[in-house]
């Protein structure tokens, strides 16, 4: 079966990202496909490459990146929700005159249309929110 995930909780504030990651691993372990993960609302903070948790805690951004590298899962981030919360890639930082950026590949800034496309492509589309 094809699964898609919608993550709307921030890392370390909300259990949603942890639950979503565990669900993703379980889905793949059962032999299903994970067609993509879409980050919306406070979930966009999962993409920040500046997150620096203590070394004995899971780095959630790195965990998502590892999921992408092992299973080629697209990691799409809503651009409107991200810019509002200070999550920007290099191009958006330049466009808005910021001195730094914190969103890098494999995360991609994209529109809400991508959320709908993903939802339509999947047999099951699961939301993880607070």
């Amino acid at each position: 079966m094809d699964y898609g995930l919608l993550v709307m909780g921030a890392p370390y504030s909300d259990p949603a990202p942890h639950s979503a990651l565990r669900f993703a691993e379980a889905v793949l372990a059962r032999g299903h496909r994970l067609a993509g993960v879409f980050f919306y609302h406070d979930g966009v903070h999962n993409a920040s490459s500046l997150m620096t948790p203590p070394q004995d805690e899971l780095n959630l951004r790195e965990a998502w990146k590892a999921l992408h590298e092992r299973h080629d899962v697209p990691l799409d981030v809503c651009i409107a929700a991200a810019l509002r919360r200070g999550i920007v890639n290099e191009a958006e930082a330049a466009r808005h005159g910021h001195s730094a950026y914190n969103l890098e590949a494999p995360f991609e800034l994209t529109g809400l249309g991508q959320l709908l496309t993903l939802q339509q492509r999947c047999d099951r589309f699961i939301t993880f929110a607070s």
Partner: protein
Amino acid sequence: MHASEDFLVVIRHAPHNASWLREGLDAALVAAAFGQSVRLLFMGEGALALCKKQQAGAPGQKASLPTIDMLEMYDIDQLNVPERTLNELNLGLESLVDGVSTLTDAQVSALFSQNRPILNF
């Protein structure tokens, strides 16, 4: 009841409670712009988004009522509130924007049990 394939967006948070309402409505508008038939269900505190006399929030918080008023332009004319929610919040239909219809408990559970895409905010 509409056909089972309409897209259901459920709003469960009051206006100005983080950006749940704004971002939920954004998702509904984009779905409608993509040609989907969208139904909005305002449950619990989410029903407060429909109060017609509401104003902007604390300084700097944008009003959300203009977005509610805009829904019709996107052909989103199914605005539903459970009767239970109105009773719990002691709200009358007359205090809400025009065009809202109420649903019984059975109708609400039917909405969720039919096979349709659902997004919760």
